[in-house]
């Protein structure tokens, strides 16, 4: 049997998706793109906030004069809490990113 004849037969086996296939797919793609944009914005905001927090913690004086009162700041505790906060945010962002990749 000739190849052209077989090719003709097989070309008649082309199948077609349902009518809403493309629309469903495009909705998924748009949602994914929107989520990626939101995630980038969240990442940027988190990065800035964490940076400011670390700056405050590292540069904060041990004694703060406020309203004619002297407040003693527990710097070590602040650094520990600050570091924990930054790592929690970082962990959250990694989880969200992994979830985005799965969808």
């Amino acid at each position, binding site marked *: *049997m*000739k*190849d052209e*004849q*077989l*090719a003709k*037969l*097989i*070309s*008649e*086996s*082309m*199948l*077609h*998706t*349902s009518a809403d*296939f*493309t629309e*469903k*797919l*495009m909705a*998924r*793609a*748009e949602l*994914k*793109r929107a989520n990626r944009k939101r995630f980038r914005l969240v990442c940027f905001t988190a990065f800035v906030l964490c940076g400011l927090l670390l700056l405050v913690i590292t540069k904060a004086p041990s004694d703060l004069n406020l309203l004619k009162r002297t407040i003693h700041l527990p710097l070590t505790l602040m650094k520990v809490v600050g570091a924990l906060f930054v790592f929690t945010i970082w962990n959250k962002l990694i989880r969200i990113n992994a979830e985005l*990749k799965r969808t």
Partner: protein
Amino acid sequence: MKENNNSQQEDQRLVLRIRDGDLSAFRHLVHKYKSISFTLACSILKDGDTAEDVLQDAFMKVFDNIHKFRADSSFATWIYRIVVNTCLNAREKDKRHLYEDLSVAESLPAGNATSFDAMQQKERERYIAATLNMMKADEALLLRLFYLCELSVKEIQEVTDFSESNIKVILHRARKNMLGLLTKITGNQLNDLL
């Protein structure tokens, strides 16, 4: 559907636009490749609904990984590879393929002496699609990659990871099996099919 130079250039342009965030270019790409990709998916998965769901996942992988496509290779081959791999992974997870499904043949009207040529186009398509659906996944897939997608043996190697000799053996076997099955289910003589 031989991918000529114009088609390749069009694909390259679409890829660049998708990388820039143009979703309409992605829509255009989906429209161009969805039918043939769906046909390939059905070759492996044998079920239309499952093939559509898996194909959606495959196209999302294309969307996510479009930045990894190298412009020096064929885009059609790249997309077929993703579709085939996604379908094979889905097939591995669902072990139903281990059981032979005879319902396809049973749903067709019994073959009679009417010449295949005399059948309406739609009826011919049903018989041919049913025949390919009854064949082994690798045979149906290779027949379609070779004759429908018009890929060379080398390109089929890139899509499937089969060796060149394996591809030739499977194609040879698939041709024989397809005609044998088609003859059986339509009740036609071999010559009447051509």
